[in-house]
C-alpha cells in the first residue's frame, strides 16, 4: 500500500454503463428484463430492470460532477466521464486527495438493493454476478487504488454464500448488503438465524459487511408532494444517513451482532453526529428495560464497539472522539453523489478534523480502513 495523500475513502460509487448487463447476459433468455437504458419520446433516458424504473427515472447519479449538482443526468450522454471511466475517476481522486476508493454501485442500488426487488431469483443472481465480474474486470483491473466490493443475491441464503465465496476469490474485499432484505421482497426477517450462514462466511473470509443508507426508503420521512425536486433531493440526502439508526438498533437488539463476534459491519453513509447520542440512548433503554436479564452478554454500545464503524464525510470529528472512539470512525468522499464534498473535499476535510490529534486523524482517514480491507 502506498499513501500519497493519507486518505482512504471508504464510500464512493461507480456508475454502471448501459451495456454492462446486456453484453454479459443472454439477451435471448432475458430480453428486456435485463437492466438497460430506455429512451422516452422526449429523449430522456432511464434505467429499467424487470419492468421497474431505477434511480428515480434518471440516467445516472453523479450530482457532484454535474454543472449543477441539484440536476442528475437525464440522458446517458450527460453522465460525466469520471462517473463511469476509471482513468477519469483517478484524476478526480488525485484532485480530491484520495489514495484508495472503496466502491459501491449505483444502478444496482446505492446500497446494493435494486436486484433484491426482482422476484425471479435466477434473474437476480445473473444481474448480481454480471456486476461482480464487471467491477473486477473493469475497475479493480484498472488500478489497485480501487477496492471492489461485491453485491449479493438475497435468497436463498446458500446462493448468497456461494456468490460471496466466488466474488472474494475474484478479488472483492467487502460485501455490500441491503440491510433489511425483507423490505425488498418476501424473504425471511434479517434478525433470524436463517441468515447465520451469510454472516458466518463473511467472518470466515474476513470481509466487512457494508450497510449503506437508503436500502429501504420507507425508513425516511417522505417529503410533501409537490415540493421542488431540488429541495426534495436535499431532504433525501439528509434523512437517508440517519435512517441507519433503525438498522443499527435492529442488528443490536435482535442479537445479529451478538451471535457473530468477528463480523465487521460498516454503516456506510451513516454520518457521525447522531451516533453517540443513539448509543447512549440504546444503553439507557437496555438497562431501563432490564435486558441484561434476557440473555445479552453485551450492551448495545459494546456490540457497536466490537463490531461496527460509522462513516462520515461532513461532520466535525473532535466532539465524538472520546465516546465513539477514533477506532470506530471511517471517512469518505462520497464521489460522485450530490452529497459528496467534491470539489471541496480537501478543504472540508481540514475543517472537519480541526482539533483532532494526528494519531486519531490517521486512524479515521486511513489506518482503520487499511486494517478493514487488509491493504
Amino acid at each position: 500500500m502506498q499513501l500519497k495523500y493519507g486518505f482512504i475513502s471508504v464510500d464512493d460509487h461507480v456508475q454502471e454503463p448501459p451495456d454492462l448487463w446486456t453484453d454479459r447476459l443472454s439477451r435471448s433468455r432475458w430480453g428486456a428484463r435485463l437492466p438497460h437504458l430506455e429512451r422516452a419520446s422526449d429523449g430522456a433516458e432511464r434505467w429499467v430492470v424487470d419492468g421497474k424504473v431505477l434511480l428515480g427515472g434518471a440516467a445516472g447519479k453523479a450530482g457532484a460532477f454535474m454543472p449543477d449538482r441539484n440536476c442528475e443526468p437525464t440522458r446517458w450522454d450527460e453522465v460525466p466521464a469520471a462517473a463511469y471511466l476509471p482513468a477519469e475517476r483517478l484524476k478526480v481522486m488525485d484532485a480530491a486527495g484520495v489514495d484508495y476508493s472503496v466502491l459501491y454501485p449505483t444502478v444496482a442500488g446505492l446500497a446494493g438493493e435494486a436486484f433484491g426487488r426482482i422476484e425471479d431469483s435466477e434473474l437476480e443472481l445473473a444481474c448480481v454476478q454480471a456486476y461482480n465480474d464487471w467491477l473486477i474486470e473493469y475497475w479493480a483491473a484498472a488500478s489497485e487504488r480501487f477496492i471492489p466490493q461485491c453485491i449479493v443475491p438475497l435468497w436463498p441464503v446458500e446462493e448468497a454464500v456461494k456468490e460471496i465465496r466466488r466474488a472474494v476469490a475474484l478479488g472483492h474485499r467487502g460485501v455490500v448488503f441491503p440491510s433489511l432484505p425483507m423490505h425488498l421482497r418476501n424473504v425471511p426477517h434479517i434478525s433470524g438465524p436463517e441468515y447465520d450462514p451469510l454472516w458466518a462466511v463473511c467472518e470466515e473470509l474476513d470481509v466487512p459487511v457494508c450497510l449503506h443508507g437508503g436500502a429501504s426508503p420507507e425508513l425516511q420521512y417522505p417529503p410533501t408532494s409537490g415540493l421542488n425536486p431540488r429541495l426534495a433531493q436535499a431532504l433525501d440526502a439528509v434523512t437517508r444517513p440517519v435512517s441507519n439508526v433503525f438498522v443499527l438498533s435492529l442488528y443490536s437488539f435482535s442479537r445479529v451482532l451478538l451471535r457473530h463476534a468477528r463480523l465487521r459491519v460498516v454503516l456506510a453513509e451513516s454520518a457521525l453526529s447522531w451516533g453517540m447520542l443513539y448509543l447512549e440512548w440504546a444503553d439507557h433503554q437496555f438497562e431501563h428495560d432490564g435486558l441484561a436479564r434476557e440473555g445479552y452478554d453485551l450492551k448495545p454500545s459494546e456490540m457497536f464497539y466490537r463490531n461496527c464503524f460509522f462513516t462520515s464525510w461532513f461532520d466535525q470529528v473532535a466532539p465524538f472522539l472520546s465516546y465513539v472512539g477514533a477506532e470506530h470512525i471511517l471517512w469518505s468522499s462520497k464521489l460522485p453523489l450530490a452529497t459528496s464534498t467534491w470539489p471541496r473535499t480537501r478543504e472540508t476535510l481540514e475543517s472537519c478534523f480541526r482539533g483532532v490529534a494526528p494519531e486519531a486523524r490517521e486512524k479515521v482517514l486511513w489506518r482503520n480502513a487499511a486494517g478493514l480491507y487488509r491493504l
Partner: protein
Amino acid sequence: MDLRYGLISADSHAAFAPGTYTTRMSSSKWGDLIPRVVEMKEDGIVYDRWSIYGKVSDGDVCNCPALMGEPFPTFPKRWEEVPATAHDPHERLKALDQDGIDAEVLFPNPPGGTFFEYRDRDFELDVVRAYNDALSDWAHASDRYLPLAIIPYLSEPETIAREIERAASAGHRGINCLGEMPAPLPHLTDPYWYPVWDVCQALDLPVHIHGSAGVRAGASVRKWSGYTPRQAHSAMTATSAVTPAQVVPHLIFSGMTQRFPRLKIVFAEAGIGGLNYVLAACDHEWESRRLWTEGLTTRPSETVRRQVYVNFWFEAEGIKLRHEIGIDNIMWESDFPHVASYYPRSWQEVNRVLEGVPAEDRRKLLYENAIRLYRIDATLPDKAISGDALPCS
C-alpha cells in the same frame, strides 16, 4: 411564580380521572361514545380500561409507574390503585415540592392526546375541547402547571386555529402535535396547515412533537417475532433518539420555518442528538447545493437555533455536546410520572448528568430556557438556588 428550586420540567404528563370527559361532554349527543373507564373481566381477573368511541383501548387505565412503587415499573390494573398525585393538580404540587421541581409542561396520559382514529370529526372536536378544558383547570389550580392544548386534526384548519385561540385564552402555553399527520391529511409541511402555524406564531405558542409521535419511518421496520416484548420496546424506543432528525429537515427545506420565522418547535422525549445531526447535515447540503438559490435564504443552523428546542434527562455524554447543539435550545424534562422519570430523586440525576457543567450553562438548561420559551412570569430569589450549581440536599 416564585422560583424556589431552579428546575422546570419541559415534559411531564397529566393524568385524567374517569369522570373527566363524562362531565364535560353532552351525554344526549354522545352517550356511551364519551371516553370513560370500563370494568373488564378476563379469566376471572378484573381490570379497568378506557373506552373511547365505544372501543376499549389496549393500554393501562393510567400511565404512572413513577408513583406505583416496587417492583418497577408497575402499572395500575384498577383505577382505585392510581395515586391522587397522578390526576389531582393540588395533590401533585406536594410531589413537585418533594422532587424539587418548580413547574412542569403538561403532555397527555391515557386515554391520550389524539382522537382522529375514529374518523368522526364532530366527536373529535368535542373530545379535544373537553381535554383542553380539563387541562386548563390545572393552570387555574396553580401557575406551576403549563398545559399544552391538543388539536382536532379532522377539522378545517381554521376551526383548529379557533380551538387553539380558545385554549390559549384559557391558559394553555403551547400545542401538542403529531410529527407526521394522519393519512390521508396533507403533509405536516403542506400549506394546508398554515392557518394553524399562523395562530401559533401570532400567540407565541410553541408546537410540541413528543417521542416518536407517530413518525412512520421507524414504525415501518418489519416486525420480528423473535423479540420478547421488552426487547421489542427497547429496539423501537432507542431509535426515537433521532426522531427530530427525520422531522426538522422537512420544516426547513419545505420553507415552513422561513415562512413562520417566529414559530417555535419543541421535541419532547426525543433526545438532543437528532438536532446535532440536523445542524451539520442541513448546513452541508445547503452550502454544497447552494440552496439559497432555491429560495432558502437563511442558513439551516441559524433557523434551528432560532426556532427548534430539544429536551434531555439522562444524557450525561450527550450534554457534553450542548454548545454544538445550542445551549439556548435545550431544556430539562422529567417525564413524570412515566417510566423514564427519576421521581422523587430528580436532583440526584440532574447533578449526575450535569457534573462539571458551569453554573451559567446549568441555569439555561434547568430553567432559564424554559422561562424564556414559555414566557413564564418567574421571580428569582435573592439567594442561590439548587439550579445555580449547589447540589440539592
